[in-house]
């Protein structure tokens, strides 16, 4: 019984229920700052508050169901932390540097980071993919579609 509970402690439904309740509480709490109005003239807080109530209710049902469900579900499985860090990091890096560095260097490093998120890609392989993607993107987006993006930004002096 005890080990079943410890397994259940990490079940998908339990986590999903908690996440939905969490979102509901956060949105619900924030909606209270806005004018609720009446059912006739709803204020900006009315509809979000109703939705927050519904999602908390649904989250609670999922949560309660998780205690009674059969323990036959597939495990959550591991998280590829390094890959997650590299992919998300690549996106953030692009956002931070695309104006300053310009498209070419920013995209090159973004592609390099995301390519190395695969365990099957070596550093050299990632660099090659990054060079290829940068060249292709320049051809498609700058030369082909004529997007108004700077290739090299003010942080680099040429």
């Amino acid at each position, binding site marked *: 019984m005890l080990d079943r509970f410890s397994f259940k402690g990490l079940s*998908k*439904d339990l*986590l*999903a229920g908690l*996440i*939905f309740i969490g*979102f509901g509480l956060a*949105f619900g709490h*924030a909606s209270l700052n*806005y*004018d609720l109005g*009446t*059912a*006739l*003239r*709803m*204020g*900006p*807080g009315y*509809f*979000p508050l109703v*939705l*927050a109530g*519904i*999602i908390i209710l*649904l989250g609670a*049902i*999922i949560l309660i169901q998780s205690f009674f469900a059969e323990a036959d*579900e597939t495990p*959550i*499985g591991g*998280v*590829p932390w390094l*890959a*997650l860090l590299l*992919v*998300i990091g690549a*996106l953030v890096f*692009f*956002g931070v540097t*695309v*104006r300053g560095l310009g*498209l070419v260097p920013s*995209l090159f490093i*973004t*592609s390099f980071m*995301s*390519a190395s*998120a*695969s365990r*099957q890609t070596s550093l050299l392989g*990632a660099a090659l993919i*990054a060079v290829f*993607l940068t060249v*292709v993107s320049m051809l498609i*987006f700058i030369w082909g*579609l*004529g*997007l108004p*993006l700077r290739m090299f930004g003010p942080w680099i002096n040429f």
Partner: protein
Amino acid sequence: MDLINNLGLGFDVALTLTNILYCFVGVLLGTLVGVLPGIGPTGTVAILLPITFTFEPVTALIMLAGIYYGAQYGGSTSAILINLPGESSSAVTAIDGHQMARQGRAGPALATAAIGSFFAGSVATLLLAIAAPPLTRLALQFGSAEYFSLIVLGLVASVALAHGSIIKALAMIVLGLLFGMVGQDLYSGQPRFTFGYFELYSGINFVSVAVGVFGIAEILRNLEDEKTRTLLVKNVENLWLTKEDWRRIIMPILRATGLGSILGILPGGGHVLASFASYSLEKKLSKNEKEFGRGAIEGVAGPESANNAAAQTSFIPLMTLGIPAHPVMALIIGAFIIHGITPGPNVINDEPALFWGVIASMWIGNLLLVLLNLPLIGIWVKMLTIPYRMLFPAIIAFACIGTFSIGLNAFDIYAIAVMGIVGYVLVKLDCEPAPLLLGFVLGPLLEEHLRRAMIISRGDPMTFLERPISAGLLAVAAIAIILSLLPSIRRKREEVFVEED
């Protein structure tokens, strides 16, 4: 004879050189992402959407639509050749199609898929052209109460047709609706849930949401467990069908076209349901039921025709009511809005060239797809050898440039990152991302119509039940929920979807 005049106008628009070219680009890209497992049409349309902003509206929509139905064709290729469906609606094709490939009949399997898809796609496009005008006339009588009920029905139906837990799918819809609330309130102008970020005043960029929950979350899922694909068939020879094959596929294609056309209108991935339903139907009707699962050609002909018919008719709610039946349709609504067109019943009258041009382009697109998929099958087989580790950095790079180019706003890129993490966590917990995106797109509309309907009825919520069309729509929504929660139906539903996993 209106139909012929309208289609004439449509072909005038669709047959210009630019539009044929972009229709071709669309179906080519669609086939490509359909073939390649790990990239779906939703992510692709989201990434390419910003690029189409510089096009004429009709050209943009022709290309985006092409990506969507092109992916239905392409998905069958990888399902048959490597037993990995490139698109969820092709999952059922893999069962018998891959068995046929193992028996050295990959050619006839691919040909059957293409012929069935072409026939079904053409018929369903004609249905779309016939059904659209009367439906828009009905829709023009809709008031806010009807629209509110219609959106509720659309959201609920997307749940009933999704697989997995219904409660979770409902919660995903509500979460999407809540994300849709971010930004300035329509009536009072008050910023909501913006945390003081000025960038959020106009709401979370919906391209960021789509790229995040479909593109990035999917990439992270795939990186959990990297596998190398093995290609069973290196060369496909002999695409011809025997007389016996023809005899066996005609009825399944006809039945599946009808079934798919009806199910495609339903919101929420009707094309996936259509292919599963058609497979079960053919299995039941077949004299040699035992052959199913061991390479029955009917098991390829039915589902492939059904999903293509459904892909075409799922444009009906979009074009007539402005309600998306599929996440890709939700993105196409975004494309309409960005081009300054409000999707809905007025499009057919205000922009007849656009409306009929897009419909006519679907025929051209379906024809191009047959040419692309049969004689050029060798190229797609080669494409399957591109490893995923080279593909996903390209997806990320294109997503970054595309999203940034919309508003030259770095905030939209950070939104992708956040939505990617949220999407990844929820998908990992068996929550489907499609209802979230539909909720996100429809949230503001739902709130607007609710508030307007309540003002018109002077605060009486009974208005939704007193107006007959509104009451009817809500009743259907309630029945859909109750039915999908009933234990017996639930078991059936799980059986239908079990083969997908």
